[in-house]
């Protein structure tokens, strides 16, 4: 429903497409309700019943609410069904004849596939009496032996009606637009008939079609029945997808449709091929009637069989047609292949192709140009349609049965109604169009105007609703603007393929191999003939060649038309060229029309030549020529018979027509040229002849004969040879010239011939040669006069030339003198220029030099005055800060700093006096009193007479250099100081191979005895590695080494010294002490963590050890409680003993644990005092022998005579000794011996020996770990802490303990202190 407020425009809804869309979107697969002829249970993913149809009580003894949430087994007990529910399946599973726990009735069950949410719907329908198998075989036999589709449909509807007993069964077949045509019907008399009608596609919306494919049968048992809801209701009814349900309730629109149709029940059976619904059995009953599951299944089988049979019949028919089609296309394509050009071939086959495809018109070509035949749409008018096609569409077959819908086609008004467009090349640009004319046709629609099949109404509440049509009366529509549909897709494809093979190949190369068909041979022969004729006219002249080329071009560009005479049909098919030549009205014409095209004078000849009898008797091979009436064009007809060789029957005559007018014209042109040439050849001014390669004159003119004095009558071929007419001395030149001529040159030279009387004749001789004819063409002219004249002229010219040459030489000599005097002048000028240039250069060089230059006069030496500055350069001025004016004319002393020593001043003065050069380092001062150090060198300058005229002082500023030197020395001093004073550090320098060159540092004497640094630092093994690393990885390398026995950290660095040699620096630092410290710290850390670990371990074990006696006490106490009334029970005392023992053990465990913890504590302090060991041992002996258990044992004590006094913690030591002695007594039965002895170093050993059970091998070491008990001591009471405690005590007391034991023989424990 669409409310008005949402509706934008009511009119819009009237649009048919919109209406259909509404129906297409109706969610009919999830109505949430069912029909009443069965009930439904929906199981959740957990297998419990989640939903139930409300009508459960109609079939069972339960209300729907009673089974909700219950397991399925509440409803039925059939294990097969219960099991199936658990299995995954994507199809409907059927179970027949099932009994339920909650009903008397027997049911057929359908289990639908699980929905996406895991819900499973189970349908129950009471069992009908139908037998599933009954009659099915006969039915199948009947259906599978039919040879026409129509009969098949009829038999099928009869059978279905028999099975379901409805009052009308009809069969629809869908067309490509989903309109359905009723093709078969079986009904009761009283039901209206729909046979032959067409039902609009909107009757079955899209999603309903999808459901028809999925569920092949569909029953609506009662259109009056309101739907039964599935409860509880859910908002999202997607949960219960009833797509596969046979009970699914019906769309209200469909119900209304059925009511309008006046039926009470409806049933449909789908006919599906692949996934496509092709037809539908629509069954109606006048009153409500349900159909059982089995009957439905049976009908479904009929539907399936029909689908298969239809396909089979279609294939059979198609196959038959295909055979015929292929035969015909094979003939046509063969023809096409044999044609000289595609266009011609196509033109000839078009009429037949059109007939074959049942078109009314046909066109082949591309958008620009079509070759067409019959009723067609003009190519110009097709243009917009062609442009509208997408590239993809172009490659597919396009069909249009109502071209009016594509727009106006003026040329086809009321003629062409539809076309099929068949692409025949890879891009779909080359196509075949098949056209069909309009066919008036009546279509009877079932129920009114199909465009009004569904309507939008306003219902009572003013809401828009969709309602189906009310009338199903037949409605006739006359269709006038449509063509027959184009249905032979297979043929269209075949056609596309065939043409693709031909056209595709041709468009690639535009030519194809010439076939050897007779038809082609005719053409070829024709061509050859022409060429022969032309060849016979060929004359060696450029003009003629080009004319011949023109002719060939004309021939090759298709100036020959072809035609085909179909003898059987007495029809002639012309190609385009033929039409052009003959001005024919049509491509295909009757034989008589064809003959009529030929001028009456010749037509009888034609008729006779093409007469069937004549052809059969004589064949046709001759040329018929005629001149066209109007324009005097000349035609040449040739024809050849193409007969079926097997049957000896004439199939067709293939012929050519050629316009040979041009050829004739050419011929006359050639004649003319020939004439003209002859005029020249037979000239009276020039001798001409033509000779063969041997020189035999083949032809000559009269003048030539006259020239050489031969009689005209004398000449005949073979009587003259121009070579033999040449004097012998002419031969060499002749041979040269003949050679040149044969290479293509046109030669003219002066030559002598003998005349008939043997006299020499001077001639001007022209010669050329033709390779085509192998002939020489010659012209001969009398030359005597010309020779004399030329010689005279040549002498004259020679005199003139000589005179000019003499004059020229005179001029040259004169010129030479002039040039020489000039050169000297120029030279001098150049020298001077050069001199000036170098002077300037020098001054410039001095000015821009970085050294300071100062020049003084030398007068002062003689006069005893001051030197006067005559020149300073720019560098001098820059450094001093003076300007040139301030300096010139003054004494250089103005630059001197007062710090310059007098000694130096004197030295300078002395040198100047002696005119000697001097070099000194002095300190100068600038204008701003800035000091600078310079290296000064003064040189005297002497003139050519040896007099000193100047002093030149050159100064170099070395202030920075001096400064750097100073810094460097200071750094070196500092470095040396540091190395010398660093404790444990030393420095060694070596060459690149490690040979020590220098040592320094406090310990450097240690290096003295080594020559190699690597040996000194004990790095011999890694020498190569270090050297490589320094070379490749970088300049610095850190490594640990040793010097003597001390650890050193050595930094090796590679440097390049001032000589450019590689040097290694070893800076070694003693790290022995540091290393020791680190080791110690690491050890301490490890110990600390070990200790912590041990403590945890100890606590764990101690708690475990505590729990064991606790368990015993606990159990025994409980046991005691259990035995409380039996105080006399012999167990009683045993339990009490156990309790005592375990409680003792607990106590001593606690005690020892505490002691251990106390001793291990950091705060524990030994209380040392002097202890007399002999006393102590004696006391302990007494203590043990006083006890009840040990009183009969003996302890032998052996001590030195004197007292042994030890300073120790009495309490702890006593505890340790007590423990050991106690063990010795406990694990032995014989005498225990205690011996004390003191060594010379003051160490005291106490040996406690027993001859008891001993300790098993391998356990001695573990004995002193906490809680360890020897495997042979388990039965004795003990804590496992005793010996551990002893060990701790002895360690604390700076003593030690050692155990030696042999299992079974005894143990000796040695306490040393």
């Amino acid at each position, binding site marked *: 429903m669409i409310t008005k407020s949402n509706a934008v425009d009511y009119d819009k809804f009237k649009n048919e497409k919109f209406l259909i869309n509404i129906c297409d979107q109706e969610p009919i697969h999830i109505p949430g309700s069912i029909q009443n002829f069965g009930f439904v249970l929906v199981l959740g993913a957990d297998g419990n019943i989640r939903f139930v149809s409300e009508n459960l009580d109609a079939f069972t003894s339960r209300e729907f609410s009673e089974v909700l949430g219950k397991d399925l087994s509440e409803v039925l007990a059939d294990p097969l069904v219960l099991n199936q529910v658990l299995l995954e399946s994507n199809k409907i599973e059927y179970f027949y004849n099932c009994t339920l726990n909650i009903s008397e009735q027997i049911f057929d069950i359908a289990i639908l596939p699980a929905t996406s949410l895991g819900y499973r719907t189970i349908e129950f329908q009471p069992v009908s009496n139908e037998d599933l198998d009954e009659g099915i075989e006969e039915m199948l036999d009947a259906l599978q032996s039919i040879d026409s589709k129509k009969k098949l449909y009829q038999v099928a509807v009869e059978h279905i009606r028999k099975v379901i007993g409805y009052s009308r069964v009809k069969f629809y077949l869908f067309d490509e637009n989903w309109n359905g045509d009723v093709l078969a019907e079986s009904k009761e008399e009283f039901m209206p008939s729909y046979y032959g009608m067409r039902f609009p596609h909107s009757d079955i919306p899209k999603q309903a079609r999808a459901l028809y494919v999925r569920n092949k049968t569909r029953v609506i048992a009662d259109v009056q029945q309101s739907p039964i809801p599935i409860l509880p209701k859910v908002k999202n009814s997607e949960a219960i997808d009833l797509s596969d349900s046979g009970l699914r309730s019906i769309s209200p629109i469909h119900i209304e449709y059925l009511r309008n149709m006046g039926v009470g029940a409806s049933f449909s059976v789908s006919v599906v091929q692949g996934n496509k619904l092709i037809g539908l059995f629509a069954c109606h009953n006048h009153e409500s009637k349900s159909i059982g599951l089995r009957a439905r299944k049976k009908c479904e089988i009929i539907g399936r069989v029909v689908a298969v049979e239809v396909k089979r019949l279609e294939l059979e028919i198609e196959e038959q047609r295909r055979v015929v089609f292929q035969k015909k296309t094979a003939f046509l394509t063969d023809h096409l292949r044999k044609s000289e050009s595609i266009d011609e071939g196509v033109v000839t086959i078009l009429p037949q192709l059109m007939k074959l495809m049942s078109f009314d018109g046909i066109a082949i070509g591309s958008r620009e140009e079509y070759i067409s035949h019959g009723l067609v749409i003009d190519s110009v008018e097709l243009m917009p349609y062609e442009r509208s096609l997408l590239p993809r569409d172009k490659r597919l077959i396009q069909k249009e049965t109502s071209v009016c819908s594509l727009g106006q086609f003026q040329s086809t008004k009321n003629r062409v109604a539809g076309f099929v467009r068949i692409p025949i090349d890879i891009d779909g640009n080359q196509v075949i169009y098949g056209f069909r004319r309009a066919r008036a046709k009546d279509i009877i629609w079932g129920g009114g105007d199909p465009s009004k099949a569904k309507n939008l109404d306003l219902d009572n509440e003013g809401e828009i609703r969709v309602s189906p049509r009310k009338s199903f009366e037949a409605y006739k529509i006359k269709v006038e603007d449509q063509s027959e549909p184009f249905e032979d897709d297979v043929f269209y494809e075949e056609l596309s393929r065939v043409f693709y093979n031909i056209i595709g190949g041709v468009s690639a190369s535009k030519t194809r191999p010439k076939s050897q068909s007779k038809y082609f041979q005719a053409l070829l022969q024709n061509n050859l003939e022409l060429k022969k004729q032309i060849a016979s006219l060929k004359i060696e002249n450029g003009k003629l060649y080009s004319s011949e080329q023109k002719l060939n071009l004309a021939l090759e560009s298709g100036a020959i038309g072809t035609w085909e005479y179909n003898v059987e049909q007495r029809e002639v098919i012309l190609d385009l060229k033929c039409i052009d030549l003959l001005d024919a009205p049509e491509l295909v014409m009757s034989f008589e029309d064809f003959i009529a095209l030929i001028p009456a004078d010749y037509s009888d000849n034609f008729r006779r030549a093409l007469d069937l009898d004549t052809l059969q008797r004589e064949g046709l091979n001759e040329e018929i020529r005629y001149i066209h009436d109007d324009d005097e064009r000349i035609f040449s007809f040739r024809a050849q018979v193409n007969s079926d060789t097997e049957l000896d029957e004439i199939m067709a005559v293939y012929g050519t027509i050629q316009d040979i007018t041009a050829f004739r014209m050419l011929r006359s042109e050639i004649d003319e040229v020939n004439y003209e040439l002859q005029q020249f050849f037979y000239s009276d001014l020039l001798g001409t002849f033509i000779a063969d390669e041997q020189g035999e004159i083949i032809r000559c003119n009269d003048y030539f004969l006259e020239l050489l004095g031969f009689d005209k009558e004398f000449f005949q071929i073979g009587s003259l040879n121009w070579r033999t007419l040449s004097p012998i001395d002419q031969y060499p030149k002749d041979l040269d010239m003949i050679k040149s001529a044969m290479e293509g040159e046109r030669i003219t030279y002066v030559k002598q011939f003998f005349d008939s009387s043997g006299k020499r004749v001077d001639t001007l001789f022209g010669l050329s040669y033709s390779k085509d004819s192998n002939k020489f063409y010659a012209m001969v002219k009398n030359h005597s006069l010309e020779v004399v004249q030329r010689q005279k002229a040549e002498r004259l010219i020679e005199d003139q030339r000589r005179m000019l040459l003499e004059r020229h030489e005179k001029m040259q000599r004169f010129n030479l003198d002039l040039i020489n005097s000039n050169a000297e002048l120029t030279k001098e000028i150049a020298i001077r220029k050069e001199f000036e240039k170098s002077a300037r250069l020098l001054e410039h060089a001095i000015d821009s030099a970085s050294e300071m230059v100062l020049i003084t006069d030398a007068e002062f030496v003689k006069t005893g005055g001051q030197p006067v500055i005559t020149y300073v350069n720019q560098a001098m001025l820059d450094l001093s800060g003076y300007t040139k004016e301030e300096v010139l004319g003054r004494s250089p002393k103005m630059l001197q700093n007062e710090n310059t020593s007098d000694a130096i001043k004197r030295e300078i003065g002395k040198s100047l006096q002696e005119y000697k050069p001097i070099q000194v380092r002095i300190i100068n001062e600038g204008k701003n009193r800035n000091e600078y150090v310079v290296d000064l060198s003064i040189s005297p300058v002497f003139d050519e007479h040896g007099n000193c005229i100047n002093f030149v002082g050159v100064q170099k500023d070395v202030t920075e250099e001096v400064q750097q030197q100073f810094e460097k020395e200071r750094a070196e001093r500092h470095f040396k100081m540091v190395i010398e004073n660093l404790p444990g550090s030393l420095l060694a320098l070596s060459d690149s191979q490690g040979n020590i060159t220098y040592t320094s540092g406090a310990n450097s004497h240690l290096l003295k005895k080594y020559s190699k640094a690597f040996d000194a630092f004990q790095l011999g093994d890694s020498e190569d590695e270090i050297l490589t690393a320094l070379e490749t990885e970088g300049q610095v390398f850190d490594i640990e080494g040793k010097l003597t026995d001390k650890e050193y950290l050595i930094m090796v660095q590679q440097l390049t010294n001032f000589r450019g040699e590689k040097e290694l620096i070893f800076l070694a630092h003693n790290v022995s002490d540091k290393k020791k410290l680190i080791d110690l710290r690491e050890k301490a850390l490890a110990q600390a963590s070990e200790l912590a670990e041990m403590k945890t371990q100890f606590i764990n074990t101690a708690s475990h050890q505590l729990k064991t006696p606790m368990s015993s006490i606990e*159990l025994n106490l*409980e*046991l005691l409680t259990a035995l409380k009334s039996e105080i006399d029970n012999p167990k009683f005392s045993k339990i009490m003993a156990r309790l005592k023992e375990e409680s003792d053990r607990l106590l001593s465990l606690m005690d020892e644990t505490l002691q251990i913890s106390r001793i291990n504590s950091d705060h524990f302090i030994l209380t040392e005092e002097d202890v007399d060991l002999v006393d102590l041992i004696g006391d302990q002996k007494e203590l043990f022998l006083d006890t009840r258990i040990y009183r009969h044992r003996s302890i032998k004590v052996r001590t030195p005579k004197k007292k042994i006094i030890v300073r120790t913690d009495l309490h702890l030591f006593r505890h340790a000794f007590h423990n050991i002695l106690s063990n010795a007594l406990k694990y032995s039965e014989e005498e225990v011996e205690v011996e004390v002895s003191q060594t010379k170093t003051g160490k005291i050993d106490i040996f406690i020996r027993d001859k008891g059970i001993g300790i098993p091998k391998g356990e001695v070491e573990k004995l002193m770990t906490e809680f360890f008990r020897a495997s042979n001591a388990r039965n004795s009471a003990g804590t496992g802490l005793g010996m551990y405690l002893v060990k701790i005590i002895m360690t604390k007391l700076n003593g030690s303990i050692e155990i030696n034991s042999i299992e079974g023989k005894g143990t000796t424990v040695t306490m040393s202190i």
Partner: protein
Amino acid sequence: MKSILLIEDEPILGETMVDILELYDYRVHWKKSLEEFLAFDPKKEVVHLICCDFHLPDGSLRDVHAKLKASETLSKVPLLVISATASEHDMDYINKNIDHFLMKPFKVSSLLDKISALVSC
């Protein structure tokens, strides 16, 4: 009468457990070490339950467990482990491999409850 194979090295605890179990009508085979247990031939004596301490003087539960798993008959007998162990390593083994476990000290009632439950199934 159901019989129990007891593996316990503590003499007093072992004795007490034997007393208790016999009091409640179980027959007890007491093995005091791994060695004694390994010598036990399951073909000669039928046992319905194995009750085992974790630490033994010459081995541990691991060894016992290995033998049980290897034996066709004993692998089907339920195993109850009794221990006072507190080490994480041992507890880890128990959690991963042992279904029935009793921590020391325990009550007679819980011991009997466990045993009767295991023996009856």
